[in-house]
């Protein structure tokens, strides 16, 4: 038995674990990835897609912060599309249909190319030195010593799969679940809870009558996720759509009692935003159809993912209710849909660095923290990896603020809000949404990435030139346009700065004279488009963005007022008892965080603000 002593142990090889391990390797610290099944590293266990509303923006953020998800998606995507094109430029969200097998293969290659060491095993407990983590113990009783540990256990902790009345103990279909780690963490003082999520059936391509389905294609000018992607010519494989019908809803209703959600077999709380088909049928009784997507799981795949039909009904009910839908009359499954229940650890036990508050050097990422989605998991894995590395190297931690990124919003939400259902990113969670566009990610995050050293030099140089390019263009647009130039594109009689002309509704940046749109030849065509489009957004939204900046400032002011970790909230006169309880468990790091804790009332805030300001005055730290 090898005697291990490493800098960081990453437990789990899912999307969080992969990002964590690879970024630790980037910092050149000794990294060990422990997984129960090395063949499942980087697996996309649910839908064959990456990005989408709000998630697409996060994938770009992962890219700028040095993560791998964006580039791998660009190389494994089979259909790319910007969502929300008609609804406003700040909420444009890139999404890709991905070849799952290809994605998994590319991830494994990256890990193998790195110095990350992989071992197969199941972590059952942690080792400690005082209130620091010191390593892990495997089921084989092997002990591994490590300065830091990142737990990314996904749905594996005491996972239970439900298909109708059938219950299977598993982490994912066909994969063993992890036992014992929850109990260990509980005995170490962590609180845990139970959540559930679901997945739809996988259909056999050959059993579908494709002529009855509608075609849905990607964009003809696809935009990649990663800034390191140069030329970009992905395939544009079609997806298809179908609608469920009343007949199939009747079958679902008839068998409702056999769904563990309704029979009471599942105690965990499911996500409201991704309801099962039985949920949808009951919650929207006046809708006689729901949209279903037929998505290939990989190129030329026979396995088709039925997006929109997540369910835990018995297999025969799933089949019966689908076979009444035109196009699915003869449908066969590779695998039925199922629901899975798993343990999670309410993330209010974490700092804004994703390190646990009580055990130094221990980090949690992904579904363990009550989130759902590959992108959310990857982002947390990345932040954990960066911070574990910085900790090992004795450097200052990376903290992402709400005004910098969706990732910052997510982490702040996780640590301050009650987790009542799996957390998924939405654009509406970001109060500064107008300023958090996928196209201005470098402007928001490059400085941070450089500061903490997580970004590769080549990418840093490219992004610096993108930011410079935008500055030049903005400056150039301050220059005046001649009246005859203006006359061609809008009815303004006198000369005016190009910027003002561009602000008019009917004018697009592409209408302006070429001299305003010059760009460096080394930038790929898609990036040029991206840049120009973003400059246009900045100018068109200028007034709103200025308002956002004012709001950001006042937020930052509260963020600067620190609250002591050992603050005795019970001793502050005037705080409500709920506030005392919430604040004592969450121990917010600053006033801004405290303000966002669920259940804190305005008068609690006033009391706390006065107390905090008084404290900092008497400490002389204002």
């Amino acid at each position, binding site marked *: 038995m090898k005697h291990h002593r490493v800098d960081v142990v990453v437990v789990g090889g899912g999307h969080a674990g992969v990002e964590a391990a690879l970024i630790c390797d980037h910092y050149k610290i000794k990294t060990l990835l422990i997984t129960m099944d090395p063949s499942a590293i980087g697996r996309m266990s649910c839908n064959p897609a990456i990005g989408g*509303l*709000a998630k697409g923006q996060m994938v770009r953020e992962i890219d700028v912060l040095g993560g791998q998800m964006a580039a791998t998606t660009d190389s494994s995507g089979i259909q790319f599309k910007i*969502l*929300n094109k*008609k*609804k*406003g*430029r*700040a*909420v444009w969200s890139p999404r890709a249909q991905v070849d799952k097998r290809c994605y998994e293969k590319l991830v494994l290659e990256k890990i193998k190319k790195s110095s990350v060491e992989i071992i197969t095993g199941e972590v059952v407990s942690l080792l400690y030195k005082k209130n620091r983590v010191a390593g892990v113990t495997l089921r084989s009783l092997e002990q591994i010593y490590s300065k830091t540990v990142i737990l990314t256990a996904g749905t594996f902790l005491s996972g239970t799969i439900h298909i109708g009345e059938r219950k299977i103990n598993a982490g994912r279909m066909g994969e063993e679940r992890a036992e014992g780690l929850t109990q260990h963490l509980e005995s170490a003082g962590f609180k845990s809870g139970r959540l559930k999520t679901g997945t739809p059936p996988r259909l056999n391509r050959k059993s579908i009558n494709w002529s009855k389905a509608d075609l849905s294609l990607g964009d003809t000018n696809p935009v990649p996720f990663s800034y390191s992607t140069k030329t970009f010519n992905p395939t544009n494989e079609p997806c298809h759509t179908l609608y469920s019908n009343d007949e199939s809803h009747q079958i679902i209703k008839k068998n409702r009692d056999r769904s563990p959600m309704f029979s009471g077999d599942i105690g965990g709380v499911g996500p409201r*935003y991704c309801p099962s088909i039985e949920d949808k049928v009951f919650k929207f009784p006046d809708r006689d159809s729901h*949209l279903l997507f037929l998505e290939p799981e990989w190129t030329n795949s026979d396995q088709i993912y039925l997006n929109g039909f997540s369910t835990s009904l018995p297999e025969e009910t799933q089949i019966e209710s689908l076979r009444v839908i035109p196009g699915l009359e003869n449908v066969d499954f590779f695998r039925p849909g199922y629901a899975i229940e798993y343990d999670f650890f309410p993330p209010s036990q974490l700092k804004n660095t994703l390190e646990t508050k009580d055990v130094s050097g221990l980090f949690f990422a992904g579904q363990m923290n009550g989130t759902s989605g590959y992108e959310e998991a990857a982002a947390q894995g990345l932040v954990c990896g960066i911070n574990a590395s910085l900790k090992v190297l004795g450097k200052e931690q990376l903290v992402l603020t709400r005004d910098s990124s969706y990732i910052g919003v997510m982490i702040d939400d996780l640590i301050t809000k009650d987790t009542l259902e799996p957390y998924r990113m*939405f*654009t*509406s969670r970001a*109060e500064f*949404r*107008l300023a958090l566009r996928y196209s201005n990610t470098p402007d928001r995050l490059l400085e941070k990435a450089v500061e903490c050293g997580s970004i590769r030099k080549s990418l840093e140089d490219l992004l610096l030139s993108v930011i410079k390019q935008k500055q030049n263009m903005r400056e150039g647009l301050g220059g005046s346009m001649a009246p005859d130039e203006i006359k061609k594109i809008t009815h303004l009689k006198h000369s005016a700065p190009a910027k003002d002309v561009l602000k008019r*509704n009917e004018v697009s940046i592409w209408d302006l004279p070429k001299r305003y749109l010059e760009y460096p030849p080394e930038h790929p065509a898609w990036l040029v488009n991206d840049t120009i489009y973003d400059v246009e957004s900045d100018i068109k*939204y200028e007034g*709103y963005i200025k*308002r956002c900046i004012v709001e950001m400032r*006042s937020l930052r002011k509260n963020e600067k007022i620190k609250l002591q970790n050992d603050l005795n909230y019970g001793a502050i*006169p*005037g*705080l*409500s008892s709920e506030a005392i309880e919430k604040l004592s468990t969450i121990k917010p790091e600053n006033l801004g965080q405290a303000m966002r804790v669920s259940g804190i009332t*305005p*008068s*609690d*805030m*006033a*009391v706390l*603000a*006065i107390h905090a*300001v*008084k404290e900092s005055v008497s400490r002389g730290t204002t």
Partner: protein
Amino acid sequence: MENQTIVSQATPFGYSSIAVIRLSGEHAFLFASGLANISTPRKHLESVLLPIFDEGGKRIDSGIFTFFKNPRSYTGEDVVEISCHGNPLIVKMILNHSLFLGARLAEPGEYTKRAFLNGKMSLSQAESVGALIASKSKNAIYYNNKNIEGASTESINTIKEGLISALSAIEYELDISEEEDTLHKTVSNVVKILNNNNLLCRSLISSFDAGVAYSSGFRVVIIGRPNVGKSTLMNALVGLNRSIVSDAAGTTRDTVTHDLIIDGYPITMIDTAGVREVYDNIEAEGVQRTTCEMGRADIVLSLYSHDTKPVDNIDVKKQINVYNKADLHKNKKLSGSDICISALHGTGLEKLNKALMAALLDVGSFSGDVFINTERQKQSVMSCESSILKSLALLKKENPVVEIVAYEIKTAIGSLDSFLGKTTTDDILNKVFSSFCVGK
């Protein structure tokens, strides 16, 4: 520092039968015992008659001491209220003795500020208390009381709920729906909700103006056909020559107001242009004013005389019919509640005063809903309204940018949050509390 015991007179300055002095803070009980020179500790809600001494030990008065144990008091701290004789000199001596014992004089609004900080009331409740103290009429007190219980908070919450539902419809489009053809329906739905809430804001804003009127006094409007003697009556009541009294019908073209005190109540008396069937052009505007004044009035005095019939078909809440020029013709068929006077000779005015006050003090039926009391509250609702209007303008465009609409609606909700005290900064707090008068 924050909990230093404070003291002040809770009742208005000047001679009165009773004055109330209030102590609040950690040492309130101790200082009260010092004033009365006793040593037994007192219980919550205990009320006792005790002698009161000055700092030299000389007895100056006796009064009722009522003890309130924290947190079950107005401020949430220990509080003692002392009712003594309403003699400014006695009050001054008691305050001096309290200061000698270690209390300090309360700053304006400090009691309410402490109540707010101790979680006893929300910011808008606190503001209502401020308005309560400043309000002079029974009606205002009634509505301010309603506010303390959160009625204005409730109506703001109604608007907020509407805005949240509009916002969530939009967010659904932005965050969930990947279909593009539902946008149109959502937009028309949102427009409906916004229009509705815009109206609610409007009515709250106008209630501010009504609220100010109520807080500053009752409104009594005199109406009647031209030449019935309205201006004469007003002058008689006011005791001043403020209106033009003339023989030509319709000289009082506009409304004339005068403030007076009857039985200690502030009353705004309004003389209107005459109401008649055929208006001439010059008076048209004045007549419209009359209708408007009647709408805002607490009481309408409807004048008639032997040669003019009472104005009928006027829809008012409270009306007193007054038969004038009784010196010329006695009205034989005077109906029960009508008052018979001669404005010119000043007869029957006593009786009219009595009837007026009885009716006023009975007015509890302000037809509007809820008040907003302070300029700050009004500003919040107004900026909410303006964000709603901006959203509506954006939604009128051909391809509305709904994410900007969402931003405006969020701003509107933010304005309401500031009404409810959520986004309060210290600056606002300080301003709110310093506009209160001493005592509460």
